[in-house]
C-alpha cells in the first residue's frame, strides 16, 4: 500500500507533522512525501530517516503554495493512486488539503488521532474531545486525511536519504495569482511550547494584554513555556505561535497551569492530556474546572503575583 505524506519546509526543516505522519505511514506501507519549500538537504534527510523512500519536491517561490501544490499532487495521484494522502494541521496543510479535496472530489477525513488502511479508517475526537468517532472513506482512493498534532510519534529509524524528484509548479491560472510580498518572523523566547515540562497559559480572564506579564513571569519561575487561548491570540495580545488548542499546538506537559481560561472546547482539545492541570479562574462554573486536578476559584490578578512571590521565596 502506497501512502503520500504532505510536508512543508520551515527554516530548513520538514514540518513536525510530516515527520510524525511519515513514521506512522511507514508502518502501514511505502511512503512518498510531497515536500513544499526550498528542499534543503537537512529536510530531505529527516524525511528519509523517518521512513520516506521517495520525495517529490516543489518550490512554490513567492506564490502561496496551495493551488500549485494541490494541482501537482492531483497529477501525481492521478494514475496509480495511493491509499491515502496525509496532512497535518498547519495552515498550508489545510489549504492544500481543501483544494485537493475539491479537485479530486474526495472528502477530507479530519482531526485524525488514529489511522488504518485497507479500507482507510480514521479515528477522530469530536465535540471537544468528549467523543470518539470512526469514519471510513467509501470513495475511490486516495482518501484525504488531516491528522492532529502528536497523534503519532515521530520515529527516527535511521533510514537512508530518499530519492528526490523535482516537481515544477504547474500553471494553475488565476487560482495561483496570490503572492507573498513580505515575510515576518516573530521571535520567541524561552523553552519550546510543545516540548516544555511546564506550560503556563493565559486567556481573556487576565483582563487585558497589560497583565500578560503575569503569565510570562510565572512561566519563567517554573522554567516553563508560555501558551495562550485562541481568544487572546485573536485579540492580538500574543502571536499565533503561542496558541494551544484545536487549531494551534497540542501540548502534553507534566504540569499545565491555565490562568484566566474558561475552557472552550477548542482549547481543551489541545491540553487535556497534560499530566497535572491547575486552573485559576474567577467563574466557578467555567468548564476548565471539569478537567482540572486543582481548580482555584478566584482572581488571577491577586493569586498569580502571590504564587510568583512564593516560588521566588523558595528558590
Amino acid at each position, binding site marked *: 500500500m502506497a501512502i503520500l505524506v504532505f510536508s512543508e519546509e520551515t527554516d530548513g526543516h520538514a514540518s513536525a507533522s510530516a515527520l510524525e505522519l511519515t513514521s506512522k505511514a511507514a508502518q502501514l506501507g511505502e511512503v512518498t512525501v510531497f515536500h513544499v519549500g526550498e528542499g534543503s538537504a537537512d529536510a530531505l534527510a529527516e524525511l528519509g530517516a523517518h521512513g520516506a523512500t521517495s520525495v517529490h519536491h516543489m518550490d512554490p517561490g513567492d506564490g502561496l503554495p496551495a493551488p500549485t501544490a494541490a494541482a501537482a499532487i492531483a497529477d501525481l495521484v492521478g494514475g496509480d493512486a495511493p491509499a491515502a494522502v496525509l496532512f497535518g494541521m498547519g495552515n498550508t496543510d489545510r489549504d492544500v488539503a481543501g483544494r485537493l479535496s475539491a479537485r479530486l472530489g474526495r472528502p477530507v477525513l479530519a482531526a485524525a488521532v488514529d489511522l488504518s488502511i485497507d479500507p482507510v479508517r480514521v479515528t477522530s475526537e469530536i465535540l471537544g474531545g468528549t467523543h470518539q468517532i470512526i469514519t471510513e472513506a467509501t470513495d475511490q482512493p486516495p482518501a484525504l486525511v488531516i491528522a492532529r498534532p502528536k497523534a503519532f510519534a515521530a520515529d527516527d529509524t535511521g533510514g537512508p536519504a530518499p530519492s528526490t524528484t523535482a516537481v515544477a509548479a504547474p500553471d494553475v491560472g488565476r487560482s495561483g495569482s496570490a503572492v507573498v510580498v513580505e515575510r515576518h518572523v516573530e521571535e520567541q523566547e524561552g523553552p519550546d511550547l510543545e516540548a516544555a515540562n511546564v506550560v503556563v497559559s493565559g486567556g481573556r480572564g487576565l483582563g487585558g494584554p497589560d497583565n500578560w506579564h503575569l503569565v510570562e513571569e510565572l512561566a519563567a519561575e517554573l522554567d516553563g513555556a508560555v501558551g495562550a487561548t485562541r481568544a487572546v491570540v485573536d485579540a492580538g495580545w500574543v502571536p499565533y505561535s503561542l496558541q494551544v488548542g484545536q487549531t494551534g499546538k497540542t501540548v502534553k506537559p507534566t504540569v499545565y497551569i491555565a490562568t484566566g481560561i474558561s475552557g472552550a472546547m477548542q482549547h481543551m482539545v489541545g491540553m487535556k492530556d497534560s499530566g497535572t492541570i491547575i486552573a485559576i479562574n474567577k467563574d466557578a462554573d467555567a468548564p476548565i474546572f471539569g478537567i482540572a486536578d486543582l481548580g482555584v476559584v478566584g482572581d488571577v490578578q491577586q493569586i498569580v503575583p502571590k*504564587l510568583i512571590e512564593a516560588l521566588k521565596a523558595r528558590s
Partner: protein
Amino acid sequence: MKIAVCVKQIPDPATPYELDAESHLVVRPQDQVLDDTDRYGVEVGLQLAEANEGTVTLFSMSPSGSLQGIRQALAMGADKAVLIDDQALRGSAALTTARVLAAAIEREGFDLVIAGTESTDGYTGVVPQQIAEILDVPALSFARRVEAGDGKVTIERQTATGYDVVESPLPAVLAVTAGSVEPRYPTFKGIMQAKQKPIDNLTAGDLGFGDDDVGIAGSGQSITAVAPIAGRQAGEIIEDDGEAHLRIVALLEETKVI
C-alpha cells in the same frame, strides 16, 4: 464591490451538544444561533463594503429550518441573505457544503467571498479553500488583517513563526481569523430592519444537485462507530481565601517540577 459572506448557524455553544443515536449527527434545534466566529467575517465584509461602495450578501447552508442566526447577521448590516435550507443536505461532508455555497455564490456573482477560518461546531476547517478551488480563485486564508480596493486585496496571513503579507487580485476568497476586526453589535434599528430584509430560500435541487450528490449519500464517507471517551474527572476545587497560592505550590512540589 459584490461581497459574499458565508455564515453558519450552529446550536448554542453554551449548551451541551447531543448526537443523534442513529445518524451520529449533531442534533440541530430550531433556534440555532450565528456562529460567533462568523461575526468577524460579516464585520470585515461590512467594512469593505462601506469603503468600496459594495453590497454584502450572506450565504448559508442549513438543514434545520432555523433563521435566528441569519437575522443576527442581517441585523449587523448585511443587505440580504441566500439560504439553502433543505433536509436533503443533512449529513453533508464539508466538500458538499463548499459545492452548494459555491454554486449559490456563482449564481449571484461576486468580487470577494469571505468566510471564517473554521466553524465552532465542526472540525474540518477546509470549506473556504474548497470554495476557492471550485470558483477557481485565490484563497487568502488565516487572515488577521485585511485591506481591499482597486481590484486587489492585501492581508496579513498567520504562519507558524509569524505572519506573511499576501496580495491577490480580485475575485478571491478570504478566510478571516477572529483577530481581524472587532465585530459591531446590532443596533435596535438594525434588528428591526433585519426583519424586512430579503432572504432567498433555495433547495439543493435549485442549484442543480441531485439527492445522491449531497447529504450522507454524497459524502464519500461513513461513520462506523461513535463512543464517548472516558474524560478526566474534576479534581479538588477550592475558593481562594488569600492562601490558595500555597496549595498550588504544594501541588507543584508533589509533581516534582519544583
